[in-house]
C-alpha cells in the first residue's frame, strides 16, 4: 500500500469527480455529499471507462405499480450497458457474487500530515495548511 495525493480538497467539492492516473492506473475519485469514493476506471463487465457514468440510486419495488428510488447517490451506472455498482464497495448490483469494480481507500488528510511523512505532496509544497484527497493502494 502506498498513499497518493490526488488533489487539494477544494478541487473535489461535493458532487464533483476527477479521473486521475495514479501509478499507471486510471482511477475515478468521487465526492458524493462529502463521502469519498475511488474506483478503477474500467467496468468489469464490458470494459467501459466507467467513471464517466451517472451517479444514481437504486430503483426498488415491492411489486408492479410500486416504484421507489432509494440509496440516492450511492451507485455508479456504467455509460454503456447500464450495470450499476455500489461505489462504497465496488460490488455490482447486477451480479454481486462475481463482478466487482476495483475500489480503493480514499480519504482527506491534512497537508501538514502529508509533508511530515515520506509521502511528500510535491505538487503543493507551499500550501501545506490545506486538506488533500489521498488514495491508498
Amino acid at each position: 500500500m502506498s498513499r497518493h495525493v490526488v488533489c487539494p480538497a477544494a478541487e473535489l467539492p461535493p458532487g464533483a469527480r476527477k479521473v486521475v492516473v495514479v501509478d499507471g492506473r486510471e482511477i475515478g475519485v468521487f465526492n458524493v455529499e462529502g463521502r469519498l469514493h475511488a474506483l478503477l476506471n474500467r467496468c468489469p463487465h464490458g470494459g467501459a471507462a466507467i467513471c464517466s457514468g451517472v451517479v444514481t440510486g437504486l430503483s426498488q419495488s415491492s411489486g408492479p405499480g410500486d416504484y421507489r428510488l432509494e440509496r440516492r447517490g450511492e451507485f455508479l451506472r456504467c455509460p454503456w450497458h447500464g450495470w450499476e455498482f455500489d461505489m462504497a464497495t465496488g460490488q455490482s448490483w447486477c451480479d454481486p457474487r462475481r463482478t466487482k469494480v476495483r475500489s480503493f481507500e480514499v480519504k482527506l488528510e491534512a497537508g501538514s500530515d502529508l509533508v511530515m511523512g515520506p509521502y511528500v505532496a510535491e505538487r503543493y509544497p507551499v500550501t501545506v495548511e490545506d486538506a488533500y484527497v489521498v488514495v491508498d493502494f
Partner: protein
Amino acid sequence: MNAPFVEQKARQTFAVVDCDIHPAHRTPGELLPYLEPRWREHYETHGVHVRQALQSGLMYPRMMAAGMRADSLPEKGGPAGSDLDLLRKQHLDPVNVEFGLLMALSKGGMEERNPGLAAALSRATNDWQIDRWVREEPRLRAGIVVPQEFPEAAVAEIERCAGDRRYVQIMLSSRPSDPLGHRRYWPIYEAAERAGLPIGLHPVGYNGGHPSTGSGWPTFYLQEHYVFVACMEALASSLIIEGVFERFPKLKVVLVEGGFGWAPALAWRMDKHFDKFRKEVAHLKRRPSEYLREHIWWTTQPIEEPAQARHIVEIIDWIGWDRLLYSSDYPHWDYDNPSFAFKFPMTEQQRRMIFRDNALALYRLA
C-alpha cells in the same frame, strides 16, 4: 454530471472486422445536398412520412442517453455517431478495427411511405456514406440502403451501387411491412444474387406501422429490445418457408443485432412440423434447418451472456463457427468491446473466424 471523457488504452492486439457501426447525421439537414432539387423541396416542405403508427415521438422508451453510449457525444457538438474523429479515437483505433461496416439507419428511405422520396433518400444516404465516411476513412465500408417497400426502386438502387466495392451488402429493415419471404420482395433478392452481395437485416425504430411485439405496444424498453429477436425469427422462418432460398440458392442473409441463441430451437421446431406438413410447402426440397444453416449468418452483438458462459458454445457448435460475425453496434448503449464481451472459451482459430475471417470471406473485403 459526466466527467471529461478519458481515453481507454489500446489493448486489442488482433485485428477485427466490425459488422455493425452506425453513422449519424451531424445536423438534421445533412442529407439535403445529396437530394435532387425536386426531392429537397419535397423534404423541406413536407418532411418525411415513415411507417409509424403513433403521431409523434418514438413508440418505445429508450435506454441510456437516448439509446447511445453515454460517453459517445462528440465534444464538438452533434449527435452520437456523427463525428468520424471520435469514432476513430473511441473505437476503430483502440479496438484495432481492420474493416468497419456502416449501418445507416436514420432517414434512409427504408421506412418512408412516399415512393419517390424513399428512393431519393436511399440514394442520398448511399452517396452520403461514401462522401462523408468511406472516402475519409478507408477502413469503413457502406451498406446499400434501399427503399425496401418499393422493390422496383430498390433494384434500381442496388444496380446503381453494385460493382463499387465500397458497398459490401444490401441493408433491409427487420421490421418491414410484410414478412420478407413475401413474393413482392423477391426482385430485391434476385438483384442481390446478381450483384453477389449479402443482405443484412437490421432492426430499425419503426415497424412498418405494426406494433412491435406482434400483439400491441410494449410498455418497457426491455420488452422492446427483446422483440428484436421475435422479428428476426419471423423473418428467418418466412424467408425459409416461403421458398426464397430455394428460388435464390446463392442468396446470403446476415441477421444483425437479433441474437442467435434461439436459432437451434427455431430450426428444430420448423423441422418437426415440416415432416408432417410438407405437402403444404411442396416448393421446399429440403428441411428448413438446412436452408437456415446454409444461407444465414449471425452477428454477435449484443452477445448472449448465459450464467454458465460455456453454454453458448454448444449453440455455436450447432450454428457453425463459420457463421458468426463480430459486431459492436457503436455508438449504441449496448456496444460490445471484443476484449470484454466474449466470456466463453474458444480456440485461437475460432477467435480468428468470429472476429475477422468469416466477415472477410462473406463480404469479400480487401
